[in-house]
């Protein structure tokens, strides 16, 4: 699946997006975050526990409990600050 990062998450991870293949036991957005942290120290820092960031699955808002299902894209981003 494709992972997208925005704003400071993108800066910390070092890429705007990446293609990953999580193992089958990664079933929820929360599982995915835990698994992504293992990819590199930069991932671990960007997605650190207690960090204020939100998630979306296939562009719809998701929480850590949301099952990945057949989602093809997950996105992680800080709270919005437009306007």
């Amino acid at each position, binding site marked *: 699946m494709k992972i997208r990062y*925005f704003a400071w998450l993108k800066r910390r991870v070092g890429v705007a997006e990446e293609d990953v293949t999580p193992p089958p036991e990664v079933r929820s957005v929360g599982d995915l975050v835990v698994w992504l942290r293992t990819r590199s120290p930069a991932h671990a820092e960007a997605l650190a526990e207690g960090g204020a960031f939100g998630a979306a699955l296939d562009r719809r808002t998701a929480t850590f409990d949301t099952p990945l299902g057949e989602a093809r894209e997950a996105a992680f981003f800080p709270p919005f*600050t437009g*306007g």
Partner: protein
Amino acid sequence: MAVRVQAEDFDVGAELARLTDGNARIGGLAVFVGLVRERHVRDGYHQDRIEALTLEHWPGRTEEALAEIEAEARRRWPLDATLIVHRHGRLVAGERIVLVAVGSPHREAAFEACGFLVDWLKTKAPFWKLEETPEGERWVESHAGDEEAAARWDKPGKA
């Protein structure tokens, strides 16, 4: 009736004229223009100097979010014209960021819907601001007041 996300500046007069020309049902047009302020304001006092900011967004998803917000406003109020134009990229202090315009036969509806759109786009559209200050770059943190302002419109009976 329209949302746009663009790097270039917009011409407020031309945008508003396009919105109202030929539509004599509109009695009141409420408009908000957001600008890059040279000072960050939080907790009631002016803080660090801001030289510029860069607005990052989520191309495609941003337009969707703005269209959803606009559709919600049109469900809640009798509106004859709506427009949201939001810029992205690097903007220096004093530059325009966003234009929200709402035309209605009734000025109260126009004012309320305009305030609603501004409040919601701040919390529901995927934009992120990176400020350039003399101390370096800093990502703008979300503001509890913005969440509260957006939540006002959730209250039953408000609209």
